[in-house]
């Protein structure tokens, strides 16, 4: 459960990356495809080369969705409801906990790369909890 402090920290992190959110999305996906090739199986229709427009575009979408979640930390279930449906019924990504863990790891790495020392253990913990909460909501409709 996200405490008030966690929510503050997540919002702070989001503030800190507000200038480079688009890059963050593309970089997260790129790192995920490099480190966890099995995640490419969900994107057979994408050009997965470095710098591809599709990765950029999709990265932007992912970060926008996370940003929306950050704005609605008190009501993640409702905010992510559509996306939850999409992942469960249309995309049928394996129960989100696993692939989303991989995405979350890469997102954390991108935050660490960009924020360096400023990415404190407290922020790291809060973001980890946030990403787990997002994964849990996305998994709600699975069965």
């Amino acid at each position, binding site marked *: 459960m996200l405490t008030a402090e966690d929510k503050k920290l997540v919002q702070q992190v989001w503030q800190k990356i507000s200038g480079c959110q688009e890059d963050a999305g593309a970089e997260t996906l790129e790192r995920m495809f*490099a*480190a966890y090739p099995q995640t490419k199986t969900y994107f057979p229709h994408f050009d997965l080369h470095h710098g591809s427009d599709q990765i950029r575009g999709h990265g932007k979408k992912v970060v926008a969705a996370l940003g929306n979640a950050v704005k609605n930390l008190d009501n993640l279930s409702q905010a992510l409801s559509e996306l939850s449906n999409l992942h469960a019924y249309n995309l049928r990504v394996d129960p989100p906990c696993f692939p989303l863990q991989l995405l979350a790891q*890469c997102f*954390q*790495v*991108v935050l660490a*790369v960009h924020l360096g020392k400023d990415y404190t*253990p407290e922020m790291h*913990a809060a973001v*980890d909890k946030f990403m787990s909460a997002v994964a849990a909501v996305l998994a709600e409709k699975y069965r």
Partner: protein
Amino acid sequence: MVHWTAEEKQLISSVWAKVNVEECGAEALARLLIVYPWTQRFFDNFGNLSSPTAIVGNPKVRAHGKKVLTSFGEAIKNLENLKATYSKLSELHCDKLHVDPENFRLLGDILIIVLAAHFGKDFTPSCQATWQKLVGVVAHALAHKYH
């Protein structure tokens, strides 16, 4: 037997050469205890773990973090023979320490984040991919003797 390409070996050793084992080890262990507080159960005799600040400043955490990462360095010297290298440590973690191997995976992921924070853009996607493979293989070797 895990296969390492020349490029992967290069990415591992070039990053490792620049790692301050004491600092990174301390930071990785502290973050494990902060981000996944249940892991504190393995460190009952470490004294004050009551807050992130206490954990980060705790001398036992620092010392143990250094120990853990030094051991990781042994793995890097023995990439072709990890299971043998970690055989005794694996038995120790199972029989004496009673650590669920899932925690090795958590620590590995945290180490990657610590490296990313230290090396910034130099910690490229290829670097990360190689190191994720490395921490996975180390975790696997550490779990190998579990029964």
